[in-house]
């Protein structure tokens, strides 16, 4: 079997030292080793976006990143977004604008939308749709998710948690 390789990650602000299999993806380590199951597994080929996490200053499909590649990086998962029980304005806006149905894609959507707003605090609708095109939602909540992102950008008072 695979020889384990030691890595060090900062996950949601906490330093984690792990020994990982060289073939394991960041997604597998997040879900199976760190038990952070908010990050979801679906397509495993980087098409659905359900496994989106923040890796240093960018978001990645964690199914496409080997855990060893993330050695020394800062990882933020959906569990690391809200401070304690308080939702971020973006998370609250997802609920207020009806962006959530079954919810399985939502951790990925929220991570991608959070990144979009960091890079572009005042996106147009087209920029939101392009920015979230890598996150599939079979419930078809795209319109409501875009509304939530735009409302957050506009400082929607409804979005206060």
């Amino acid at each position, binding site marked *: 079997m695979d020889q384990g390789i030691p890595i060090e990650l900062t996950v949601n602000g906490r330093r984690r030292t792990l020994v990982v299999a060289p073939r394991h993806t960041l997604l597998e380590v997040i879900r199976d080793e760190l038990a952070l*199951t908010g990050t979801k597994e679906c397509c495993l080929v980087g098409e659905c976006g359900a496994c989106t996490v923040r890796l240093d200053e960018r978001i990645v499909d964690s199914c496409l990143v080997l855990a060893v590649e993330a050695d020394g990086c800062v990882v933020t998962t959906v569990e690391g977004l809200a401070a304690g029980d308080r939702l971020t304005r973006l998370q609250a806006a997802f609920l207020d604008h009806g962006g959530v149905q079954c919810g399985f894609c939502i951790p990925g959507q929220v991570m991608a939308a959070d990144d979009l707003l960091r890079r572009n605090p005042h996106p147009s609708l087209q920029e939101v749709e392009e920015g979230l095109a890598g996150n599939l939602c079979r419930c078809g909540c795209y319109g409501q998710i875009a509304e939530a992102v735009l409302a957050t950008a506009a400082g929607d008072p409804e979005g206060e948690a």
Partner: protein
Amino acid sequence: MSAVRVGDAPRRVGGEARVTGRQQYVADIHLAHELHVKLVTLPVARARIGGIDTSAALALPGVRFVMTAADLPQPVPRFGPQFRDRPIIATDETKYHGDPVAAVAAETKDAAEAAARLVRVAWEELPAVTTVAAALDPTAPLVQDPAIRPNDPLAATNVLREHPVSWGDLDAAAASADLVVENVYTFPMVTHFAIEPHAFIAAPDGDGIAVWSSIQHPNWLQRVIAQLLDLPLAKVRVYAPDPGGGFGGKQHAKYEPLLAFMALRAGRPVRLVLTLEETFQAVRRTAAEVRVRTGLRSDGTLAFEDIEANYLIGAYADIADRVVGKGSYPACGPYRVPAARILARSILSHTVPSTAFRGFGNPQVNWAVESNLTEAAARLGIDPLELRLRNLARRGEAFIPFDTPCDGDWEQTVRRAAELIGWNTPAPAGRGRGIALGIKSGPTTGLSYSTVRLLADGSVVVYAGTSDMGQGARTVFAQIASQELGASLDAVTVVMGDTGVVPYDQQTSASRSTVLMGNAVLAACRDIQAKLRSMAARLHGVDEAEVVVDRGVVRLRGRELPIIDVLKPGLGSLGGELIGLGEMRKEADPDHPLGGTAAFFEFNCTAVEAEVDEETGDVTIARYVTVSDVGKAINPLQVRMQDEGAAIQGLGHTLLEQYIFDGHGRIRNLGAIDYRIPTSMDLPVEMISEIVENEDGPGPYGSKGMSEGALLCVAAAVAGAVRDASGVVIRDLPLTPERVWRALRDRDRS
């Protein structure tokens, strides 16, 4: 926080857990000492299974055992919601690409996956049928062993069943028709593509078994497992965490029976999480070829419909034959049709077992029949909207004889959609418009129980066996309880998905839960209100008849008290609680072709404005209007989400999605790269959804079921707009750019 009202749009119950990642789906649950399971499949649809050599797999560290048909009771037990035709694991031969022949159990996922690749199966490819024509060929191999349906004259063919429905005098009607339009339409195989792949866990549980599944029908699964293991129902506990999308693909048992046998063999929990590719090989929508002959008089009045619908189901029936029967039954649409002949066939094939999928067999025939109406309108020189309105059933009209009459003001819905798309104004240059109507028969039978507990502090626990797979059932039930018992929404808990504590519910399907379970929850709340009435009468020395409990308050002799002011003294020093029981039944009618009349109809009108890129064949939807008659929206935001989501899902089979097979019956586009579902870049430029609320449904406060209506007629509306914009008529879905481009080229050549 005060009580919410029906008609409000509070945040989704369970929403916070979903945006923070705390929501636990089956794959997120781990049991101590669990084993990981990986399925072994063959790279071919149909093969004779020879020897299975597991030695190399078993030699891998961490591998505990490999389960094959030989390790099961003989003959291998079979299961299925309609026919007990599906073996727990393939025995003797595989019948479709993905039919598992063995399953490895190992200490780690890695070991299970590695071992699955080392299981050596000797197999010999056999001819497979994957199309309607091939399956109906008299020399075709039989998909199903005829012994599965003894005494059935069709058992020696690949036709599992025929579903004939007719009324009126077709010959006489045909003689009166001025125009007959006859065409064949095809609808592709598509898959549910829930973002949550199916996941299953089974574990020995005392002298019984516990099963976790992303299932829509936990009580049905409980029955299947109990039958297979010969256990009392009380010894089978099914946990059904909220599915991450169902759409019908999670209604019935798939690999839970296999996992149950493996758990008992291991004496430990076993888990199986499918890959997305494996879900393509587990569930799909029934494909169809539909021949339609529509007869009309010159004024556009319908004379007859003659419909032959060949549905291609898979290798095992699952619920697909019911899909065919129930989906084809309202094939003539919401119209006054004097004479009709509908013949639908369920045709077995060596493909993935097809199952329920949002719309339940209706979108296939709707695509054909509505498209044929658009063509008839063009040939008669009548506006397609006008032609539909001329024939549309009015409230109370028995448009399908012997069934529930028209139960809404459907014309209102159609006129609103036409207004929103601007039907009576010319389309902008380069654009065309299409309009179509969709109808679906609601549940024909049903049984839902609910228990509601009003706790000593006025908070409420609702028990409901519905699965909340995104449609928002939890929120709907919580809103009903909040309104009836006066608790704020955050003081209401809805418990679902555990057959050990939640009372029986028949199923979560056919857009039934707001109506059937909703009524059961309402009845349970009213049961508590009755107890509060007698409590108040006793406390205040008045007659029960003088007490009214309404919307969280108790009224007596001109006074109005919050429920808690009656509850606390009424319960007394020991505290306790009030328990209400609610039951809702939709009785069967054994003489009805479907076994029961429609509890309600889902009715939708979709209108589309589209443009076609003449160079590439790409279809852009500029405006999309969907209007549904929902009776009453208990949560208008959730209704909008369901309608728009259904529309977008419908755009998938209309424009993008289809399985592609090779000569070995293998699916060549498994997974998210080669099979595209709509993304945020595939949306209509403008999406408008509205509802009609006349409070005329059988559900709480006049609600009707509504989760499928907006998907029914998407394809016909879009194709109508493409036809109007470009002049090309396409009768095969999906309307891919290639297909549209070819049609444009043919148009220019002719």
